[in-house]
């Protein structure tokens, strides 16, 4: 039986993690169908049909799908569920909000946030903020699975030509109304997908001091992250937070500045390929996960770091 992947998009284009979710879906079964629910979302549906791993696209449109309200989306997917062994979506706020509503309607015990497909019914997932890994096997006939996007590579994005089938919209859920979305616009790479991330913690001492981080981020074309302590102290807005209650990032290079390394922060970044820690406390737990640790006062180290980077000819873009 085929698997159904729920595409995440903004009505114009696919959101990048849809490609990672398609990869995960294809590891469960090669017969991947993808559903896209939205409004005026033809271009995004076309982009979905061009993913070589996708065999069929189901496109559903109505005005009340424009803003991705889970109460409207869930019944559409539940109605199609008979045809599929698995329903799959990314474990970001879109999928976290939507999938349990589908799973409960199907009387299925959902498996959240998997990092590996072991077999079509057995998966690896982190628990306790990544302090333990559980191997779990679903005994339900139908499986609802959300995947951690950063644990799967994005699939090829061009060359496919899957048929696009239109499906009927469901009814509108009257008791939930979308009002507005305030997206944080930035010229920088997105925190969740950036190749380099530089984060500041409580050691930054003020929001103003984050400009030391910004200048290095500019040089390295890096996204800017922060620990929960820095966010709670008001140094930086919470969309920069890396950790169990923020974003999970897996960049090639993660630079932690003035971050002690609380469990909840480590959960969000310790899968990064190379970790650098700059901290004046040599005993800080962040050093236990760092490939390169520099025990130094960040107010001296950061300007030097920028100076050294300026000496290099390679500017990462």
């Amino acid at each position, binding site marked *: 039986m085929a698997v159904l992947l729920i595409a995440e998009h903004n009505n114009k284009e696919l959101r990048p993690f849809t490609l990672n979710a398609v990869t995960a879906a294809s590891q469960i079964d090669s017969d991947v169908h993808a559903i896209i629910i939205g409004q005026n979302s033809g271009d995004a549906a076309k982009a979905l049909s061009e993913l070589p791993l996708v065999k069929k696209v189901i496109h559903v449109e109505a005005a009340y799908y424009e803003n991705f309200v889970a109460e409207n989306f869930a019944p559409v997917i539940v109605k199609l569920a008979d045809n599929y062994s698995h329903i799959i979506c990314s474990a970001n706020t*879109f999928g976290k909000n939507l999938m349990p509503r589908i799973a*409960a309607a199907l009387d299925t015990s959902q498996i959240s946030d998997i990092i590996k497909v072991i077999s079509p019914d057995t998966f690896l997932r982190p628990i306790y903020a990544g302090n333990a890994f559980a191997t779990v096997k679903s005994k339900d006939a139908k499986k609802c699975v959300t995947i951690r996007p950063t644990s799967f590579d994005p699939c090829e994005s061009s060359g496919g030509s899957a048929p696009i089938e239109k499906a009927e919209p469901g009814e509108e859920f009257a008791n939930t109304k979308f009002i507005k979305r305030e997206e944080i616009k930035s010229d920088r790479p997105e925190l969740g997908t950036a190749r380099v991330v530089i984060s500041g913690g409580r050691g930054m001492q003020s929001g103003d001091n984050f400009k030391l981080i910004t200048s290095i981020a500019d040089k390295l074309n890096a996204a800017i992250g922060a620990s929960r302590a820095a966010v709670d102290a008001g140094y930086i807005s919470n969309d920069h937070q890396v950790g169990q209650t923020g974003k999970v990032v897996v960049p090639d290079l993660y630079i932690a500045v003035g971050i002690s390394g609380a469990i909840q922060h480590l959960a969000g970044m310790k899968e990064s390929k190379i970790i650098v820690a700059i901290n004046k406390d040599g005993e800080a737990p962040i050093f236990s996960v760092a*490939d390169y640790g520099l025990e130094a006062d960040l107010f001296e180290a950061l300007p030097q770091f920028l100076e050294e980077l300026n000496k290099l000819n390679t500017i990462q873009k």
Partner: protein
Amino acid sequence: MKILVAVKRVIDYNVQVRVKEDNTGVVTDNVKMSTNPPDDNAIEEAVKIKEAGKANEVIAVSIGEEKAQETVRKALAVGADRGILVKAEGIIEPLAVSKLLQKIVEKEKPDLVFMGKQAIDDDCNQTGQMLSALLNWPQATFASKIEIKDGKLEVTREIDEGLETIEIATPAIVTCDLRLNEPRYASLPNIMKAKKKPIEQLNASDLGVDTSPRIEQIKVEEPPKRKAGIKVSSVAELVQKLKNEAKVI
């Protein structure tokens, strides 16, 4: 208005969790247990709404072993009026929890159900959404701001792209983000007073819900360890290592 708040007893967030040697789970013996952190935000918000005169009763409910009574008692000490403990042994998956909560909702008929967005033990992030599906109620997940307006709720949600605002009609489910509020500490007099507040005890089996697990936990392991790194002595050395050894800049 009546608000039901679901609270879960979990390993305290400051405890370094250790995997059992036989790989059947994590060590819980002699480990400090606390209320799941965002559930504290859920209780705080409900109590604040009551203090503002917009609710007349706050009920705290927990599902779990006998000791989960302590979690309910803590909710009473910060302002909940009465408690319910649904006793159940072993792993109760979010689907079963939401079915048990559905039974409590049918009995208590609250206007709002609050809970944390996610439990920090199994990290599932499912129960609120599942309960709202079973009840066919609106759901406002990951709430960082709640305003009550003419019997409706305007809720700001934390989403990956930033913030989203939705309006939901009651009855409704709200799952709370850590940024919703600053949970208060229980004062000693309130802890004493809470001892006199009633906690109704029920058994999961009496509610007619099958709580047997649908997911088999095959094994629990330590995550792979990162290999030990090195300390560098200067910024210049760091940059050279990043360029020539790690080749990431």
